[in-house]
């Protein structure tokens, strides 16, 4: 009988989900309990935004999840629309959807590195990086920056879309779809991958919801739960798309759900692109001082439901901004639920981390 001992895992570890640590309690090779050690990425966004003014606070609003910044950008812009009580033009609404969906795809493609890396496969990761690169190039073409775009602002979007926007965007969706299909075949069709992920990290959707998780973790567990459907924001009620769900709720199902989601996102983009035309108004001017009140937005980011709560007491700066982190329950309650109900060895742990796909800076902020 092997004794029980404690091991520190991460933050400098290729299998750790970002710059974040764990204190693992082991019995032999089995992991019994994992205690999260966060704080390596804490910058204090909620305090820093209070020091900024309304017109430049959005530069900070999306920086704490670098893999999926646009969902957060859209959420903050929406919340400030509510504070200023302005209605952005239709074109901006549709463009924000395109932006958020491309960001979701880019985030899922980044996750392929993680997932493929932890199961020992390199080829799908290389192909996925090509898909992500094409999307980032599109972002640089439209917004002027690859990763942090600064494009969805209170009152609409920041500039006119470039010439030939519709054609190039539609073309890109087909190009990305081709690559993603290859990646899916290479990753999900691989026998090694199936062996490593089937039956590992099982959690049912309704259990995950009770533990605070949202997003692909819940949908992989067989529950149709998506903020884009239950409380549509922007113009998600005007486009048609499906919510892909898994059956068992293991790591394989979560991977499957993410790939299916990419196809649905591409479908949304193809519909939304038709509504973004050059020459239409794209932005409403917002004043420099805000009226007192409350702004609240909920969006479906790549990792789950994400909310922003802005409190304004008038004046030039936000009084208080509070972000909800979709990743926090994944690495605390959900992870410990899996460890309690399953025999997880240390070799399976990176696979489970990757399949939950947490965003470490989002926990610390």
């Amino acid at each position, binding site marked *: 009988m092997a004794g029980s001992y404690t091991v520190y895992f991460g933050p400098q570890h290729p299998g750790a989900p970002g710059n974040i640590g764990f204190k693992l309690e082991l019995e032999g090779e089995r992991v019994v309990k994992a205690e999260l050690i966060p704080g390596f990425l804490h910058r204090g966004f909620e305090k820093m935004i209070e020091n900024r003014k309304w017109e430049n606070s959005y530069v900070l609003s999306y920086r704490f999840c670098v893999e999926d910044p646009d969902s957060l950008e859209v959420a903050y812009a929406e919340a400030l629309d509510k504070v200023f009580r302005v209605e952005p033009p239709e074109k901006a609404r549709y463009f924000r959807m395109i932006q958020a969906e491309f960001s979701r795809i880019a985030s899922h493609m980044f996750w392929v590195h993680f997932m493929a890396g932890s199961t020992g496969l390199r080829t799908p990761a290389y192909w996925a990086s090509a898909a992500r690169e094409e999307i980032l190039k599109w972002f640089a*073409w439209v917004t*002027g920056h690859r990763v942090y775009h600064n494009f969805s602002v209170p009152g609409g979007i920041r500039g006119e879309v470039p010439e030939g926007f519709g054609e190039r965007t539609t073309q890109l969706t087909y190009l990305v779809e081709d690559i993603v299909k290859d990646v899916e075949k290479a990753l999900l069709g*691989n*026998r090694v991958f199936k062996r490593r992920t089937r039956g590992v990290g099982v959690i049912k959707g309704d259990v995950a919801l009770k533990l605070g998780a949202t997003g692909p973790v819940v949908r992989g567990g067989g529950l149709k739960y998506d903020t884009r459907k239950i409380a549509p924001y922007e113009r998600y009620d005007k486009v048609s798309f499906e919510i892909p769900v898994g059956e068992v709720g293991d790591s394989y199902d979560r991977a499957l759900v993410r790939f299916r989601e990419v196809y649905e996102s591409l479908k949304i983009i193809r519909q939304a692109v038709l509504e973004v035309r050059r020459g239409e108004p794209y932005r409403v001017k917002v004043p420099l001082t805000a009226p007192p009140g409350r702004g609240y937005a909920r969006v479906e980011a790549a990792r789950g439901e994400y909310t922003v709560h802005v409190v304004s007491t008038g004046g030039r700066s936000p009084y208080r901004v509070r972000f909800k982190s979709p990743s926090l329950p994944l690495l605390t309650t959900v992870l410990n639920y899996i460890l309690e109900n399953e025999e997880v060895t240390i070799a399976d742990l990176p696979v489970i981390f990757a399949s939950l796909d947490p965003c470490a800076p989002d926990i610390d902020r």
Partner: protein
Amino acid sequence: MVLSTIVKSIEYMLKRPYTRLVPAKSRPFKTERLRGAHLLDMSKCTGCSMCQLVCPANAIDMVEVEGNYPQNPRRRFPRIDLHKCTYCGLCVEYCPFNALYMTSITGFELYTRDKKTTLKTPLELSKVDPSLITVRREMLAVKEVKPGG
């Protein structure tokens, strides 16, 4: 299933390489609206310090410059710390006199072994090649639309 991956890999091997060979020559990541280092038009700047006020990173400080600038009696111009800037373009957007631009100069051209070189004085900022300009104020400034529509 693995076979199809292998076939695909061989297909890729026969195609043109995806890797950019020499980024210094091919400039693979530059686009027409890339937000890079700034250009200052010293004949337009009036020293109103709007850019300083709006900068989220505190990268812009107003400093005095020798010389004769009739539109700017106090001779105060922005000094931009490119090692603090986040390249959000707010200074360009809020400049009321159209004096600031952004160019396609990014870290590739700004790379340095001594970080003192990235603190750009107004004179240095005004000597940037204007053909590199990518972001102008017209691209970012708000077109007047009535709230509600």
